[in-house]
């Protein structure tokens, strides 16, 4: 700890921080532009000037940049010094000379860091009377709008895009006053984190293009704390609503989870909530199928009664994209033995295995914050960039501990960004990737190994063996692979915080077991090491914790005639299992009830469709890959009969004449019931303040205190203002009235602080800059490794893979834009979704005589034949073909599996699919 003097008052602060960070942590308002809490200092904008004094007798002092100065013990500075103030006002005036007169038509207005800083420094009137420099804008794709005139040249965009997110197609051009930030030519920004530029840019150069289509000022957005539903990391978000539609997603800082950034899938996938495929009211379909007709809630309930009349004839299919509460309600309705998890046999088996490994230990599953501190990583069979993008962003920041120590010995702190990068000479922490197909992180990896899933698993076991005994004790392992195993083992052993990442995405149990074997070896030999498994969907982990049998077993139960009614919760079965199998399942059920928010092929087959809420219209709990349960809250009240799924299922339970659900009045009741029934969910009751929580007797308002239009927005339908809806489930209110101070961390509806209207207001909500939120980061971990349990029996090491001629091993491929079911319904994301394709390595394709873009027939056992275009993918091993998972237009195939390929005879119309 160090004692520093600010305006002659002593403050005790943490060592090795810069003055700007310290001043902001202490709550001072010190303006800045180029500094960013995640990207640190470069001292480019000169805005954070303060005065430094030699000692208490020094009255003259000198102006220094707070962000570039170490807060040494005994340092004396002044923020309020008139000369420092004048200097800061002068810098703002300079930055504003060419800033256009755009605020009324600028999307940043009202949450603009430049506006805030201009007001803070007191610059009010432009003294500059000459011509303003102008720039032409660029087209940057479906996510971002470019308005280069507004630039103040803080370089944050390039520093985020290139240095932080590893992007290559955005840079600074020209020099001096003419500097330009953009691409070399118009085109789509390729990096999947580009959307963060809208938040990173302190002014309106980069703004959210989807938000622009239905623009609303920040002060008008009704917001609530939420959790992203587009992958299993559970990044915290702030969705904003106005006039009954969802307008945008902003990042919600959570020190343990997503920090300052979101991926583009999470930021732009929201549009499905407003989509025309939404189920807006109950629908009834006649016994013969055909067109569904809208019906009233009463009609729906009476049809429900008919379908549910015989108890014990009912089975329920849950969903990894529905909340814990909804899945639990379904499990209560049908009973534990008749609850099916609604995922494929393979996914259920892999999730259960991964969960068991994490529960058994000894390795612990780290949070994203802990991953940020890892210094050697081995990824086994998971394309992290495309299945869990923010984890990939975290992995890009890893720096070896040795290098940090080296830089510190040169008196360079990690916050001194440029010097630190120079000191570590771009050296990243060792990152090894072993997978069947090329992954998005391959370019950043120290070494990459692509082979069949079983060979990848063999490498993993070899690494474990080297760690335990020093040699890769496995027969038939090629020389280069055993060498690689030795190298990886050495890197993991030398690291202070080694990390092994695997996941369900690879589709192979042996890879998961291989990862577990390495983590066990690391723990037993070195006593360190963490293990992270990535799950495919937002609540896959929660569903795995809840248990439930697979879809194949549901089919079995129906075929045997043990059940005739199927209740399907928020699940499109056609993306879970092969089409013939799903057809059989749906045909053997007499009654199908679907509760979902979006029409899909399954809901088209249902006799009764009930409208469920999305994440924005309902509250619930999701469990992320780390095992952290997080609560998301309803952002707005939807029109009509849209309700949370669990409320519909609660009706079903009451209609069947049972009393279990009678006590479920609010969300806390069902969470409590769940915790009583399944002790592993006990912590869910503690993730957020209960519904009756009040501060000074008041609820926390979802609307900012400046929200406008209350007495006019409904006036065209009824001139009497409606009563604001009451939210029984949470301590949040649908009004602008209520407690005006800072809410508890799990309930923060938006980041705003007096004088800080932009996202930078988050500084005021943290215990220290880039640290946990005041009151602790929200969420509760449900999984901790069991203490003192020795590792289980040695795992079965897979044999080397052999492929017969004409046989191909088809492995899953992932796309940030395309793999996830809901985000592809968003119009902006849809523009980035690739066309369906089958990937082959160029050598294989040449030997087959098939050119890029030509069609091939894909024949998988027991599944319909698909015709699909071939795309060359360098890095795929020979004999391995790749198929993008759940890409629109690609049929569901259980992967990986052996398939055969038929090349249609070349005719005049070759290649036309």
């Amino acid at each position, binding site marked *: 700890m160090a004692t520093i003097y600010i305006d002659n008052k002593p403050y005790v602060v943490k060592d090795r921080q810069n003055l700007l960070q310290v001043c902001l942590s202490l709550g001072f308002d010190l303006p800045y532009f180029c500094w960013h809490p995640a990207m640190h200092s470069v001292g480019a904008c000169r805005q954070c000037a303060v005065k430094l004094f030699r000692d208490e007798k020094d009255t003259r002092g000198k102006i220094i940049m707070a962000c570039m100065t170490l807060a040494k013990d005994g340092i004396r500075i002044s923020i309020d010094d008139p000369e420092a103030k004048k200097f800061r006002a002068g810098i703002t005036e300079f930055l504003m000379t060419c800033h256009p007169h755009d605020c009324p038509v600028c999307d940043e207005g009202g949450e603009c860091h430049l506006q805030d800083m201009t007001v803070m420094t007191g610059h009010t009137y432009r003294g500059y009377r000459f011509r303003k*420099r102008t720039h032409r804008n660029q087209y940057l794709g479906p996510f971002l709008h470019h308005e280069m005139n507004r630039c103040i040249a803080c370089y944050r965009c390039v520093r985020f895009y290139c240095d932080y997110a590893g992007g290559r197609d955005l840079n600074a051009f020209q020099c001096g006053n003419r500097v*330009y930030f953009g691409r070399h030519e118009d085109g789509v920004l390729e990096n999947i984190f580009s959307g963060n530029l809208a938040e990173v840019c302190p002014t309106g150069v980069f703004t959210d293009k989807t938000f622009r289509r239905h623009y609303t000022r920040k002060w008008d957005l009704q917001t609530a704390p939420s959790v992203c539903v587009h992958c299993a990391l559970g990044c915290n978000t702030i969705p904003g609503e106005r006039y009954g539609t969802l307008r945008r997603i902003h990042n919600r800082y959570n020190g343990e989870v997503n920090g300052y950034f979101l991926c583009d899938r999470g930021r732009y996938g929201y549009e499905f909530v407003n989509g025309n495929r939404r189920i807006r009211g109950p629908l009834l379909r006649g016994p013969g199928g055909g067109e569904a007709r809208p019906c009233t809630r009463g009609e729906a309930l009476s049809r429900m009664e008919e379908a549910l009349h015989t108890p014990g004839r009912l089975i329920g299919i849950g969903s990894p994209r529905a909340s814990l509460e909804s899945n639990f309600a379904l499990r209560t309705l049908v009973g534990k033995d008749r609850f099916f998890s609604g995922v494929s046999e393979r996914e259920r088996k892999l999730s259960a295995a991964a969960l068991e490994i994490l529960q058994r230990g000894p390795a612990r599953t780290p949070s994203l914050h802990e991953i940020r501190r890892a210094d050697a990583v081995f990824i086994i069979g998971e394309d992290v960039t495309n299945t869990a993008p923010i984890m990939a962003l975290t992995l890009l920041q890893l720096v070896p501990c040795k290098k940090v120590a080296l830089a510190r010995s040169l008196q360079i702190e990690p916050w001194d960004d440029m010097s630190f990068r120079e000191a570590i000479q771009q050296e990243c922490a060792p990152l090894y990737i072993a997978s069947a197909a090329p992954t998005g992180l391959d370019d950043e990896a120290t070494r990459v190994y692509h082979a069949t899933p079983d060979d990848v698993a063999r490498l993993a076991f070899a690494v474990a063996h080297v760690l335990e005994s020093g040699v890769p004790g496995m027969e038939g392992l090629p020389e280069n692979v055993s060498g690689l195993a030795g190298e990886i083992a050495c890197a993991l052993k030398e690291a202070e915080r080694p990390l092994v990442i695997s996941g369900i995405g690879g589709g192979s149990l042996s890879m998961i077991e291989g990862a577990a074997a390495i983590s066990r070896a690391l723990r037993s030999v070195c006593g360190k090491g963490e293990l992270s498994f990535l799950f495919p969907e937002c609540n896959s982990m929660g569903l795995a914790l809840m248990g439930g049998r697979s879809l194949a077993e549901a089919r079995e139960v129906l075929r045997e005639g043990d059940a005739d009614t199927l209740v399907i919760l928020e699940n499109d079965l056609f993306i879970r299992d092969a089409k013939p199998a799903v057809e059989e399942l749906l045909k053997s059920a007499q009654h199908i009830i679907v509760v979902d928010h979006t029409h899909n092929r399954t809901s088209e087959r249902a006799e009764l469709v009930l409208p469920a809420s999305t994440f924005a219209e309902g509250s619930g709990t999701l469990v992320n890959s780390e095992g952290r349960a997080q609560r998301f809250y309803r952002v707005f009240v939807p029109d009509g009969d849209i309700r949370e799924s669990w409320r519909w299922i609660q009706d079903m339970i009451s209609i069947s004449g049972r009393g279990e659900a009678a006590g479920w009045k609010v969300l806390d009741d069902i969470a409590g019931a769940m915790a009583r029934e399944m002790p592993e969910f006990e912590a869910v009751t503690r993730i957020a303040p209960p519904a009756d929580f009040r501060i000074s007797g008041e609820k926390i308002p979802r609307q900012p205190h400046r929200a406008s239009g209350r007495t006019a927005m409904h006036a065209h339908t009824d001139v009497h203002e409606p009563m604001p809806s009451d939210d029984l489930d949470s301590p949040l209110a649908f009004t602008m009235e209520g407690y005006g101070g800072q809410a508890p961390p799990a309930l923060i509806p938006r980041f705003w602080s007096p004088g800080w209207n932009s996202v930078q207001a988050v500084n005021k909500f943290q215990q220290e800059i880039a640290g946990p939120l005041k009151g602790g980061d929200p969420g509760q971990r449900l999984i901790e490794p069991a203490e003192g349990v020795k590792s289980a029996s040695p795992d079965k090491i897979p044999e080397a893979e052999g492929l017969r001629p004409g046989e191909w091993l088809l492995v899953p491929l992932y796309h940030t834009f395309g793999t996830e079911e809901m985000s592809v319904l968003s119009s902006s994301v849809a523009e980035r979704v690739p066309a369906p394709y089958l990937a082959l390595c160029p050598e294989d394709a040449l030997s087959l005589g098939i050119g890029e873009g030509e069609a091939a027939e894909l024949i998988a056992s027991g599944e319909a034949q698909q015709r699909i275009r071939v795309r060359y993918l360098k890095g795929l091993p020979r004999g391995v073909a790749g198929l993008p998972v759940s890409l629109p237009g690609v049929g569901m195939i259980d992967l990986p599996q052996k398939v055969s390929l038929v090349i249609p005879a070349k005719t005049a119309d070759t290649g036309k699919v």
Partner: protein
Amino acid sequence: MISVVKGMWRVFLFLFRRKVTVQYPEEKPYHPPRWRGRIILSRDPDGAERCVACYLCAVACPVACISLQSAEDENGRRYPEFFRINFSRCIFCGFCEEACPTYAIQLTPDCEMGEYKRPNLVYEKEDLLISGTGKYPGYNFYRVAGVSIGGKAKGEGENEAPPIDLHDLMP
């Protein structure tokens, strides 16, 4: 007794003073142009809508009686998709006019807005938009703003230099 007589005397003297009562509606009183009466939306000197839907009037309104939604036309001009003022709530404080950065929203001297039914006091954009510039004749926001719109490319605004040529090698 004396005080009653005094009072009556004072009232009697008023008979010889000038009459204050105006015979409204036969006789209309004069309202100066800065009178804060019925709100209108004006057009710029080129005849296009002045309102750029910046939401500043709505947020300034103390009774929250202004509601709008911004939209953008094919030329990049912002305009309100709908613009609604609930005059049954309006207190004619003029904050909206003060907040307006484009002189679009203006209060007029018209105060004759009596209605028997409250819904008739809800004015939509069609009811608010006039065909002239109102009190501020010369101003056109897009001439001074940095954004390009149809007919005004980058660098063609007032006091603007031509756009930077990124391929120029001159220092």
